[in-house]
């Protein structure tokens, strides 16, 4: 990573009090994102990806307890006073949510939502703000942007709505964009378009991006670095090419194996990861993946593996029995 570090997450943990006891959603996560770089965060549902992104934005539910530091551009967001944090959001930090059906206000027109954001943050007047909104909508690939300004979210398709959400997020030229499963709620045919759009705008604006997904295939060609999360912890972290060439963590391997292959014979059973993620309210001894891991031995049930270095310093994994042979993956 040659770029200066823009965001550095240091020892962040999120605890949620629930009726069944304390739920540790994010457990001691360390991450770094350089300016203009893309970090992919991969993991299955409920592994703490979204909670981590909310922790970075300081938008956790009120009851949640956050510890650790989130250094963004030289400031610790956790201890930053609310007013300065508010000014940072939108202008330097932006987010695109999973479901464009609910992330846009249903009773305001697209134009109102875009123009007001611009007026609020960039202090533009009505007419320049409108002009810029049209440019933004055109930039995210919305045809006839002037007419769209007058429309309400329910008059647009899911893909269009997500494009509008991206336009709003990009409106103030943020330094970091967090895309929280931006394509999960969309049609498969639209997914690639939206991801390409995000990648293109990111390159053009030299913006850092955190791409959160449950699909290793999504991060493969579009990220510089990948962090694999399991049960609230980062279990493997590596530059994207290194990860796909030589993954160490059995969980990463299992995730990759679970992607259906186009050249597989018809009626091939899909390889699924057996079992379910552990109940986060009951922390288990040892490696949290051990009950589902096919390499697990006695030690895996006793001690928690820590992140250790592989051959290169930027490839880290948390496993006692890393996969030795290069997993012959032709992705």
């Amino acid at each position, binding site marked *: 990573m040659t770029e200066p570090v823009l965001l550095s997450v240091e020892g962040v943990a999120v605890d949620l009090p629930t009726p069944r006891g304390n739920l540790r959603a994010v457990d001691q996560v360390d991450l770094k994102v350089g300016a203009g770089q893309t970090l992919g965060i991969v993991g299955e549902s409920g592994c703490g990806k979204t909670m981590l992104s909310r922790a970075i*934005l300081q*938008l956790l539910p*009120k009851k949640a307890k956050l510890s650790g530091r989130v250094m963004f551009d030289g400031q610790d967001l956790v201890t930053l006073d609310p007013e300065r944090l*508010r*000014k*940072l*959001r*939108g*202008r330097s*930090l*932006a*987010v695109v*949510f*999973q*479901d464009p059906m*609910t*992330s*846009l*206000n*249903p*009773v*305001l027109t697209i134009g109102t939502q875009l123009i*007001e*954001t611009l007026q*609020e*943050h960039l202090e533009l007047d009505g007419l320049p703000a409108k002009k810029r909104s049209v440019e933004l909508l055109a930039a995210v690939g919305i045809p006839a942007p002037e007419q769209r300004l007058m429309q309400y979210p*329910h008059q647009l398709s899911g893909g269009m709505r997500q494009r509008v*959400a991206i336009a*709003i*997020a990009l409106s103030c030229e943020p330094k970091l964009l967090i895309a929280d499963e931006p394509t999960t709620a969309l049609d498969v045919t639209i997914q690639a378009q939206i991801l390409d759009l995000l990648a293109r705008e990111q390159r053009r604006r030299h913006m850092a991006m955190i791409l959160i997904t449950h699909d290793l295939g999504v991060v493969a060609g579009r990220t510089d670095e990948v962090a694999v999360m399991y049960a609230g912890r980062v279990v493997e972290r590596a530059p994207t090419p290194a990860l796909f060439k030589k993954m160490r963590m059995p969980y990463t391997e299992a995730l990759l194996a679970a992607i259906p292959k186009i050249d597989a014979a018809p009626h091939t059973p899909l390889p699924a990861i057996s079992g379910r993620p552990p109940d986060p309210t009951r922390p288990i001894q040892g490696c949290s993946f051990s009950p589902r891991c096919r390499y697990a031995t006695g030690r895996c049930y006793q001690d928690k593996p820590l992140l250790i270095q592989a051959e290169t310093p930027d490839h880290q994994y948390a496993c006692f029995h890393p996969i030795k042979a290069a997993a012959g993956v032709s992705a």
Partner: protein
Amino acid sequence: MATLELGIDENVAISAIGRRRRLGPLFWAAIAWMILVFAAAALAGLLPFGPTDMDMLERRAPPSALHWLGNDGLGRDELARLIYGARVSLTVGLCAPIIGITIGGALGMLAGYFRGRFETLVVGSMDVLLAFPPLILALAVTAYLGQSILNLTCILGVLGIPAFMRVARAATLTLARREFVIAAQALGATHARILLRELLPNVILPLFAFFLLGVAVTIVVEGALSFLGLGVPPPVSSWGSMIGEGRESLEMAPRLAFIPAVTMFLTVLSFNLVGDTLRALSDPRQGAL
């Protein structure tokens, strides 16, 4: 085959335009009645008779060319009293829910958005207000402060606050959890901005529909209070007091009680119909929002 496809396309186009939901003749009849009542109340000054001009020779006179609806027990023109009564009924009926929607709506939105101790306090105090028998409260206040339109409006307004608070809070609670609120926070919006620009346009729809129902209820309650002699002081006429006065001559001239009763019935029905239609329109399950 080609003509068939064309035909389908046309239907689709028509149904797309026709998506503005049909409101039905009942809705428009209700709107027409409301306009008539409002216009009559606004133009009451043009009437040749005042509501208190007595003509003792014409007591309980039947309808004539001069007095279209006849005269009441004191020889006053029934139509004039009905129209001036509309002024009182509509003033109280509109102003009291405005007090309710403003204070109740604001409290409800703040409670639903900020939650915590403030919500407990607001909901608790509203429960106390709801537990208080409304008629006793109205009686007590008019006994102390005297009978006037202003006092009546204030009492009915305060009594309406809990209901508006509940509607606003329920709507805010569900909306505040939606992602667009988190998205607005992520864009650096202040609490005031989120409440006024993001939540209020969403909450105002159910609140306004409830407001129209509130107008209907308030007109009835005002009528009931006036009927009991707790409403506007005589000789000012309101529909409720007219029914009350007409009760005395129910055997000789039943129309004196029935005409204001029918007027009130139609007005209340109109407000209910319009309110219901608007509520159905703003209902997200049907509105496909």
